[in-house]
């Protein structure tokens, strides 16, 4: 017998003519998903709440106290439960069979799956579904058995929550521990935060993948960008490549930053602290901010120490970790000064991620990783031929790979 999405039917009619119907199995299976799916059975009271945690049956708690529901997987299924409804206490009004995806995909991306009823290893009814029955849900109620006028009925619910298991548990009246927040929440919020900047939305997913990879979903930090604006950079400004850097980095600032702002400096022989880039002003930032880059009084020689000093001054008393993304096209000569400044700054909550672009002679920047005499390694460096020569995904990966190591080390040394 086939059961359709939304259908409600008396359990007895599924088990017609079957004398052993007092004991049956529910088998669950989902295929075509990349990430692990957790199945569970929630026993709810008449208020539709999980008033007793012991009635959540899953791999960590394989049996209800009454023994009415017990993990037992039929051959061929991913997981299953053996059910003897007569054993259930009267306070349990409903058994909800759920699936939750642990990761970045959603139920809309699965291939197909089913919830089926078996008696004595024989299938008697099946509710089949596919990814098309869902959208962005990460935790769903596939089906439920419920009491109605003294009988048990089944409903092919097939609905759920984009917020994953946490949202589902909340729906059932449960409390979700704060210290194990779902990675889902941040992903959704980054996309949501960027909703007002359609141009950046496709970056949200890519940034989120990297953030999850490096477990930075819950990290709060300030993000700043230091832009080399020496003469040799002119072409990068003129052709819009520097503007692109801002657009690529802004999603990270929106994610990490409490105020969603990307602090920006430009430097050449002088230093200019620009107004922060935000979702409101990022479009054409380079050409419009402070009269546009041509009017910044830059495009001269490069003086890194001057800007490093200003950055340190601004952030030295901050309580939040700071990620400084420092773009340079090389020609670095003030090696001793830079080295001393960064060594001294190792006790501050600032991590310096240097990116060399299209240049050469990066001087001391190339040795930052191995520079001795610091409390923690507070610098990272990588070089690119061109700012746009790597994909956004790769850029985020490279930008975020060293930062978490520093976060951990800085915490150990009580810098944070």
């Amino acid at each position: 017998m086939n059961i359709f999405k939304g259908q409600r039917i008396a359990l007895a009619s599924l088990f017609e003519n079957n004398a052993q119907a007092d004991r049956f199995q529910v088998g669950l299976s989902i295929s075509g998903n990349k990430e692990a799916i957790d199945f569970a059975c929630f026993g709810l009271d008449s208020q539709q709440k999980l008033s007793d945690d012991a009635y959540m049956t899953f791999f960590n708690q394989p049996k209800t106290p009454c023994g009415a529901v017990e993990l037992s997987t039929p051959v061929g299924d991913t997981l299953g439960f053996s059910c003897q409804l007569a054993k259930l206490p009267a306070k349990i009004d409903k058994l909800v069979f759920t699936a939750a995806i642990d990761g970045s995909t959603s139920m809309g991306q699965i291939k197909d799956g089913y919830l089926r009823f078996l008696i004595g290893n024989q299938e008697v009814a099946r509710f089949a579904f596919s990814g098309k029955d869902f959208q962005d849900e990460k935790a769903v109620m596939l089906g439920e058995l419920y009491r109605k006028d003294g009988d048990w009925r089944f409903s092919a619910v097939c609905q759920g929550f984009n917020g994953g298991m946490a949202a589902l548990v909340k729906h059932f009246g449960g409390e979700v521990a704060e210290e194990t927040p779902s990675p889902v929440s941040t992903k959704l919020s980054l996309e949501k935060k960027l909703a007002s900047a359609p141009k950046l939305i496709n970056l949200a997913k890519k940034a989120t993948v990297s953030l999850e990879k490096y477990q930075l979903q819950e990290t709060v930090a300030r993000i700043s960008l230091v832009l080399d604006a020496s003469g040799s950079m002119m072409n990068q400004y003129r052709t819009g490549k520097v503007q692109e850097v801002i657009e690529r980095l802004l999603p990270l600032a929106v994610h990490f930053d409490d105020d969603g702002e990307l602090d920006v400096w430009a430097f050449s022989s002088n230093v200019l602290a620009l107004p922060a880039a935000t979702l409101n002003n990022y479009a054409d930032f380079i050409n419009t901010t402070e009269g546009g880059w041509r009017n910044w009084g830059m495009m001269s020689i490069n003086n890194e120490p001057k800007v490093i000093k200003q950055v340190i001054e601004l952030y030295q008393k901050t309580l939040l970790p700071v990620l400084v993304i420092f773009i340079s096209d090389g020609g670095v000569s003030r090696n001793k000064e830079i080295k001393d400044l960064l060594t001294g700054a190792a006790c501050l909550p600032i991590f310096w991620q240097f990116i060399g672009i299209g240049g050469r002679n990066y001087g001391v920047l190339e040795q930052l990783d191995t520079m001795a005499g610091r409390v923690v390694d507070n610098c990272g460096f990588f070089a690119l031929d061109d700012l746009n020569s790597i994909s956004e995904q790769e850029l985020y990966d490279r930008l975020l790979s060293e930062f978490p190591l520093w976060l951990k080390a800085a915490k150990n040394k009580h810098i944070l």
Partner: protein
Amino acid sequence: MGISLNKGGNISLSKTDPTLKNIIVGLGWDARPTDGADFDLDASAFMVKADGKVRSDSDFIFYNQMKSTCGSVEHTGDNRTGAGEGDDEALIVLLDKVPADIERIVFTVTIHDAESRKQNFGQVSNAFIRVVNKDSNNEVARFDLSEDASIETAMTFGEIYKHGSEWKFKAVGQGYSGGLAALARQYGISI
């Protein structure tokens, strides 16, 4: 508590409730607790002649045309989510005011955009349609859409019709596909 209907059952409204002069056809459902498109159920009425067709498009009372020209049938308003207690949408019929050439009034319930939203009554919690005596507030008849019409998206709930000097109610409970447009065409509305 009213009489729970079986498909095709007849009730003489006048006999069930002798005081009955005016009726309310109430439609209720629970707002969606899960993520996804809201459940938007719509109640509508078709005032038809003996041949089963409307006299004109103005005999089709629905969310875009809330009152009949004669004033005997009135829609109380479109609820698009099911938020709120009790009846979420209602049609009020003043039986004495129904024009002489109208023989029947058919009540339907449909899910707005059911096809594109891939919804049916079974996905909606506590969806019902009922007839209530407007003056006494007694429920005369009720149909449980969630349980008994779970895989439907449109339904002719029932109809009141003239039988001699009295009004009778017939529980139809017939599901349809094609939504409100298909139902409207069936009763002679040009869509």
